[in-house]
């Protein structure tokens, strides 16, 4: 028997011992594991189970404790622990994960600190990217820390290559941060990394997401940190939430994924962990306000497909013409704005228009869906004559195309702004039996945060105000918006975007430190000329003719079948075949025209412009910074001092000065001399 002693979470006050048979080294062998807890702390005191080694390595076990309840007593919480386990192989004392799909999230009991202390509470988990380069965005309006807990991986980290899953490049295992609770306060001085960065391979990072500004915590939703994981990479992270005084807010974690990043559910069953109703967003943390100041956090992953798999361009240097692809504080993953104001009318009830039975319905369709609707339901094609006649009866002479009010194409996903629900597609009384169409729920639409960045000057002095023009480009607007530097410089510049699905209009709001300072309107959408062909009306006429023909058949023939047979052999039936075919081709051809638009340009600004640019526009916001050049000789300040406007004792001055006025305190000369002295000082003096 081989025994391992593991120092488990100190906060849970138990020691953990794992016993495993030596045969566990061999793949396929099984062993029995017994975990003994310090008596009196947990029930049961001994946990036993069998383990089968499928890896050829000695398995090690780590307990995963999930909190289910917390009882507050004084300044402490006691957590009821539910124990689970995760099997980890050991090689050279380095822990590796046996199964990348396995995730465990941990919360531990903590002591609530005093009011004046900053309190940290960790969670951690694993995100797995198996195909595309992924990006994880963490948002918070308080400082957060990404740390690795030393309590969970007792060996201090994992980093070695280990071929567990064949399609995973183990060399791309990344690790973020290290540290422990004791380092949290010292982390105030941690290095604050660039907002967007790629985590080095096999390196340990300590990342502090410093959201403090001017000595105070920033309020509102702010970008904390973006980092990226490579294709087939996995990332382990511990997110530490902190609270100070009466701070309260949420922390969000977004993981871009489409759909390769595996969505990992969090394990804790904590009542304090909230799950958003949105499919692609989870609350990461939720504050609970207590007098003593404490916090509860959750963990999340998301599935927002935002980022293209390829990334182009490099950070530019000043003076160069280029695109700064490094999104400095601006990547928001298009999260819906959570900042409450009157722009969102939350009192408008949400109604599922698709099943409400009246009014108009709005559907957000893919190109395939639209073709499907038009080809297979609106303009029947490839059907037997009897089917066409049946359609004529069903529609009662109406043409479903007559119910089309509008149809247009927008080059972005409407789900950024509106919630949708899968439902039938209705054309008046005609309802397509397929229920897979996305119907837009009634709402005013949400705002999305297009970017959120600190608008900082280049030099940090007067030149930032006088020498620069800042022109903002926003997609689907007319030209550039000249930013008033006085409004935005050294403030947080945020842009929120709204889209009205009924008018195709866009509206952007620009915020300077959460104050709306500008509003820019635009429009988008290419109307689809679905009703622009005579074939449509002709098809309708033919259907009506079919209906009339059937009625005639009923009245004049000995049976309906006979009537139908007559029609089938008559001119009307031929008309149906001919016209419906023509109508179908006309519409489908119209759609095919827009097929060419799917050749979406991948590089919008410094790449080649395709003919479809008039539709797609440049689809990301950027800033054009024009700097008017200055000549400032190097010696100018040495020889002539700085622009100063200093008022005070001359004893503080040295070197060249131009003194515009002097309040003399001790002078024995004449007024004539005093005037001469003032003139000389205005001319310049070297003190």
């Amino acid at each position, binding site marked *: 028997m081989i025994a391992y002693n593991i120092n488990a979470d100190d906060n849970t006050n138990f020691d953990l011992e794992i016993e495993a048979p030596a045969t566990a080294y061999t793949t396929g062998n099984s062993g029995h594991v017994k975990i003994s807890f310090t008596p009196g702390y947990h029930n049961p005191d001994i946990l036993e189970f069998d383990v089968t080694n499928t890896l050829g390595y000695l398995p090690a076990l780590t307990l995963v404790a999930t909190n289910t309840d917390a009882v507050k007593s004084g300044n402490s919480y006691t957590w009821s622990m539910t124990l689970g386990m995760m099997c980890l192989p050991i090689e050279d004392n380095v822990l590796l994960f046996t199964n990348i799909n396995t995730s465990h999230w941990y919360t531990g009991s903590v002591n609530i600190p005093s009011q004046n202390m900053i309190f940290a509470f960790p969670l951690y988990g694993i995100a797995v990217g198996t195909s595309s380069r992924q990006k994880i965005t963490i948002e918070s309006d308080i400082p957060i820390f990404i740390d690795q807990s030393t309590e969970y991986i007792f060996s201090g980290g994992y980093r070695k290559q280990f071929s567990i899953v064949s399609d995973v490049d183990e060399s791309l295992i990344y690790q973020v941060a290290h540290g422990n609770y004791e380092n949290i306060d010292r982390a105030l001085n941690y290095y604050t990394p660039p907002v967007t960065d790629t985590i080095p391979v096999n390196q340990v990072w300590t990342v502090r997401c410093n959201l403090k500004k001017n000595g105070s915590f920033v309020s509102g939703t702010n970008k904390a940190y973006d980092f990226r994981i490579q294709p087939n990479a996995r990332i382990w992270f511990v997110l530490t939430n902190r609270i100070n005084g009466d701070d309260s807010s949420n922390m969000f974690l977004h993981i871009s994924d489409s759909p390769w990043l595996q969505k990992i559910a969090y394990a804790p069953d904590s009542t304090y962990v909230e799950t958003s109703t949105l499919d692609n967003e989870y609350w990461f943390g939720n504050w609970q306000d207590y007098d003593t100041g404490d916090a509860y956090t959750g963990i999340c992953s998301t599935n927002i497909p935002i980022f293209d798999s390829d990334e182009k361009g490099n950070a530019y240097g000043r003076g160069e013409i280029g695109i700064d692809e490094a999104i400095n504080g601006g990547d928001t993953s298009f999260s819906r704005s959570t900042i409450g104001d009157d722009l969102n009318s939350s009192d408008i009830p949400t109604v599922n228009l698709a099943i409400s039975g009246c009014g108009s319905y709005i559907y957000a369709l893919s190109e395939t869906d*639209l073709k499907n609707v038009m080809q297979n339901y609106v303009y029947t094609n490839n059907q037997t004559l009897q089917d066409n006649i049946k359609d004529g009866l069903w529609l009662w002479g109406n043409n479903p195309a007559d119910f089309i009010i509008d149809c247009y194409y927008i080059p972005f996903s409407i789900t950024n702004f509106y919630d949708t629900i899968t439902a039938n597609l209705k054309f008046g009384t005609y309802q397509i039996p397929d229920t897979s169409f996305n119907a837009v729920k009634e709402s005013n639409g949400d705002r999305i945060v297009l970017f959120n960045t600190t608008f900082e000057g280049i030099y940090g002095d007067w030149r930032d105000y006088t020498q620069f023009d800042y022109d903002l480009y926003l997609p689907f607007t007319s030209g550039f918006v000249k930013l008033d530097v006085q409004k935005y410089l050294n403030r947080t510049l945020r842009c929120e975007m709204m889209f009205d699905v009924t008018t195709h209009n866009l509206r952007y709001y620009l915020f300077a430190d959460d104050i709306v300072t500008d509003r820019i309107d635009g429009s988008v959408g290419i109307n689809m000329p679905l009703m622009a062909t005579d074939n449509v009306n002709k098809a309708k006429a033919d259907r009506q003719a079919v209906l009339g023909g059937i009625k005639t058949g009923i009245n004049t023939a000995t049976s309906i079948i006979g009537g139908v047979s007559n029609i089938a052999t008559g001119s009307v039936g031929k008309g149906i075949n001919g016209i419906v075919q023509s109508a179908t081709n006309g519409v489908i051809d119209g759609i095919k025209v827009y097929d060419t638009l799917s050749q979406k340009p991948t590089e919008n600004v410094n790449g080649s412009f395709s003919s479809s640019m008039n539709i797609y526009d440049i689809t990301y916001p950027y800033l054009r910074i024009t700097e008017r050049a200055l000549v400032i000789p190097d010696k100018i300040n040495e020889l002539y001092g*700085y622009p100063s406007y200093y008022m005070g004792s001359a004893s503080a001055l040295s070197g060249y000065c131009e003194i515009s006025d002097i309040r003399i305190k001790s002078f024995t000369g004449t007024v004539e001399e005093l005037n001469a002295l003032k003139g000389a000082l205005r001319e310049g003096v070297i003190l």
Partner: protein
Amino acid sequence: MTVRLYSYQRDKLIANKSPYLTQLAEISCTIVGDFNILRPTIRVETANSTLNCNYVYIVDLGLYFFVTGRKGLTANHVDIELENDVRHSYYNSIKVSDVTATRSNIKNKNIPETMALNIPQEKVTYRKLGNALTGANYILVVGG
């Protein structure tokens, strides 16, 4: 009156010139014409020192003067035209007074540098602020 004759080779704007003065002589002088405290003329004996000095301290007045010119040179005497160096003469008064300095060693970064020269060149850079809008939809509005 007694004057000290100096050679001074530094910037006129330096207020405290004492460290940079090289004394040539200390002699007697008389005032020529009407006395002007800012621009007096003194008569001294002709000598190398009186012909080569460019800075003068009149001991009886406690004032420093620049030598601005010479005239009336004879074998016995020469008249030296002076200008009161008020920066040096009242250096101590300046140092203890309150002043308003438009340029000094104390920088105010918000005040433009008036001595900078604008040149007709521009640098244009671009900075991406957010990610591209992605996806696409065909919006179909139908009557019900």
